[in-house]
């Protein structure tokens, strides 16, 4: 029986939260690349934000020290139970070359140190936080609503394209660049001929939060940029610059390098950047871009934290406007799903694992059935993903329930998954026709010692051994028959 997990248990404690997807990529870069990246204060600030909470505190502790401090001095601050976390944090920082590699003294990378200091105190002349465009008297800059609508439209076009490719219908195609990226990342695959077909990892991708989806694609983009001989430092620092920009403000394209201008066009396709015209000399980052380094889940359910000013800029990269920022799904114990949405994308995503019953202008009603869930499982979506999608998008009314989703439904979805795993196949050899029971037992004993027996049947005097053990078992039998 699968155990019942409350959705709350999914949250890991702060100190154990998973590292950001970008960090492994950064770690794989050379020290030289990283040091060049660290020359820009905005990059340092963004990378600092991607670090875990403990690493951030350690960076801050070391930031204002002029000289290196002995390792022991810092270790005194660590409580014994936290030793492992502390060591891990130091390893992460050394891996990123934020911390200088030394076993006796702790000191930050001097470039990183001076740039982060500059980011915090302001000043300098690097212009790394984006040069604002001159005020244009003729035209008002696009408002935040325009930007949100644009980002949303772009992003949903991509997702919608993916979702509907599985059903054989093709809506508006995203641009060539996006299609290529989707193909590269194996989220979609060309299926005999030109039509792209969504893959199983593509289905999983659809159920992720917009924030994770965005980083998935950007990481692919970075890998691609490496192959296209683009300067990674310029690509990364442009992304980081975008993440520190202010929503609703216009920035000038003049200080950008050639690489970055190419990048700007690509990002416009993804909906990270808005421009009035392709030839425009100014651009505005959208919410997708300004929330790049915020660690909060950018899910529609987690709208702004109390309407704070900072919070307002971080609130959901809404999959739809304000109504959808709250959850929209009601799941009942009788497996019925009511989704209060008029968004075709959300309907399409739900359609992946739900049998639709009725559609109303603002409401979709469906059932979770064995067939519909099995269809999703066959597409490579896991039961956990379905459950987490349902719980992250649960309607506010559902949030009063504890546990959030009816336990029976959760368990049933997991059981449907287990159903698929009843048959397990393994390659191997069947040993039979033993002359005597003693022979059989003798060989079986030997095979068991090697831990290669997969199945045995004493009455029929045969057993099934795995492929790896065959050579040994065979040699053993030959030795016996040859010797005896």
């Amino acid at each position, binding site marked *: 029986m699968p155990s019942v997990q409350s959705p709350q248990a999914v949250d890991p404690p702060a*100190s154990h939260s998973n590292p950001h997807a970008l960090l492994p990529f950064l770690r794989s870069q050379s020290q030289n690349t990283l040091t060049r990246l660290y020359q820009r204060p905005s990059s340092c600030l963004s990378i600092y934000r991607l670090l875990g*909470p403990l690493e951030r*505190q350690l960076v801050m502790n070391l930031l204002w020290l002029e000289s290196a401090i002995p390792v022991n001095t810092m270790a005194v601050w660590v409580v014994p139970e936290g030793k492992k976390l502390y060591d891990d944090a130091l390893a992460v920082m050394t891996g990123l070359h934020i911390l200088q590699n030394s076993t006796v003294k702790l000191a930050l990378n001097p470039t990183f140190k001076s740039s982060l200091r500059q980011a915090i105190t302001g000043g300098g002349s690097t212009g790394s936080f984006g040069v604002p465009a001159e005020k244009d008297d003729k035209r008002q800059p696009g408002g935040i609503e325009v930007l949100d609508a644009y980002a949303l439209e772009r992003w949903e076009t991509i997702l919608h394209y993916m979702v509907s490719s599985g059903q054989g219908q093709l809506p508006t195609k995203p641009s060539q660049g996006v299609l290529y990226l989707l193909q590269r990342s194996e989220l979609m695959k060309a299926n005999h001929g030109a039509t792209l077909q969504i893959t199983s990892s593509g289905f999983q991708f659809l159920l992720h939060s917009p924030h994770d989806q965005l980083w998935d694609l950007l990481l692919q983009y970075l890998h691609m940029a490496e192959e296209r001989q683009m300067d990674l430092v310029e690509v990364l620092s442009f992304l980081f610059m975008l993440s520190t920009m202010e929503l609703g403000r216009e920035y000038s394209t003049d200080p950008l390098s050639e690489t970055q201008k190419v990048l700007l066009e690509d990002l416009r396709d993804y909906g990270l950047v808005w421009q009035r015209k392709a030839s425009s000399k100014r651009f505005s980052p959208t919410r997708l871009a300004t929330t790049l380094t915020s*660690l909060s889940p950018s899910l529609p359910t987690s709208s702004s934290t109390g309407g704070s000013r900072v919070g307002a800029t971080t609130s959901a990269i809404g999959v739809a406007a304000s109504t959808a920022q709250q959850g929209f799904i009601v799941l009942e114990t009788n497996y019925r799903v009511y989704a209060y949405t008029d968004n075709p994308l959300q309907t399409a995503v739900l359609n992946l694992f739900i049998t639709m019953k009725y559609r109303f202008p603002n409401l979709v009603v469906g059932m979770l059935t064995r067939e519909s869930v099995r269809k999703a499982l066959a597409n490579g979506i896991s039961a956990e993903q379905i459950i987490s999608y349902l719980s992250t998008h649960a309607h506010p009314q559902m949030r009063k329930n504890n546990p959030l989703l009816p336990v029976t439904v959760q368990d049933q979805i997991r059981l449907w998954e287990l159903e698929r795993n009843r048959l397990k196949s393994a390659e191997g050899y069947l040993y039979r026709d033993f002359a005597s029971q003693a022979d059989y037992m003798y060989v079986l004993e030997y095979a068991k010692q090697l831990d290669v027996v997969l199945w045995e049947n004493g009455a029929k005097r045969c057993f099934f051994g795995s492929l790896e053990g065959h050579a040994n078992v065979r040699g053993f039998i030959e030795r016996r028959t040859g010797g005896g």
Partner: protein
Amino acid sequence: MEKASHLSVIVDLSPTQWHLSAQADNQYPLSIQTFLSQLLAFLNAHIASQHENTLAVFGALPGKSVMLYSSTEVLADDAAAPDANSYPPFKAVDSTVVQRMMYEFDAFKDVEEEAPCALVGALAKALCYINRITHPSTSPGGAAEDPSILPDPRILILSVSPDLSSSYIPIMNSIFSAQKLKVTIDVCKIYGPDTVFLQQAAHLTNGSYIYLERRDALLQYLIMSFLSPPAIRKVLAVPKQDKIDFRAACFCHKNIVDVGFVCSVCLSIFCQPVPVCSTCRTKFPIKTLQRLNASRPSLAPTSSRNTLPLANLNNATPRPTPPRNVNGGTPGLR
């Protein structure tokens, strides 16, 4: 995912104390200008840590307390020109705090006599503010939020003024509210003698009280001790006071007392035996009063600190309890 954290900073802006602090005959003179630049760096460091972190700054001025900055409040005078070399939120904090502080200081130019600093007012405002942001459902238009994304609130008090004994009761009441709201109060004593009340505030809310010894290293102290949210403090320890002065102030004269007399009904504290409790109007037997008066140390009470415990007005048998033990919570204040 990790939670965002909220930090409310209360800055003690007593002009006299800052003037004294900047005198060159101090071992480490610290002027308000240097203090401010280091404080701003600290505030920025807090905002830098996470995009969702919220910040509020309160100033305790003589006779009044003001909010200098809050990240939830829409700035009216948003004239700060964008600058390619600084992160916009940092700039907003820096300019707002400095502007408002200057404005408040200018308003004090003509005042002859300095009223005591309204630390309690600032503390109460900070608590009200935290209450508002952690319970958004009570505020108009706020939606019911998932408790897991509520900020992890802390208050940091940067104190330069000495204790004001008349504010004992309001401070204690604030501490209880903080305990109830699960707010950690941290105290950094930048100048002047240790304050008894703030020590207790930090101790009772599980925060830390630090007396700044090397005042030239203010920023480093601030960052190492007060920047980390409670979750991190479980890994990187933060210094705490090993000795805490638990003395209370009496309700009648607001003096800090070593030996007090406690009403057996409502636990009010008095510096001398009284016939009727001023808080709950309980009358005490004359006999007890006489006995207590007789046993009272007549001379300098400070010298007898370790000899007499708090006596109970009804039952005057002195019990040998150590004086540091005037019961951590001092319950029953109203």
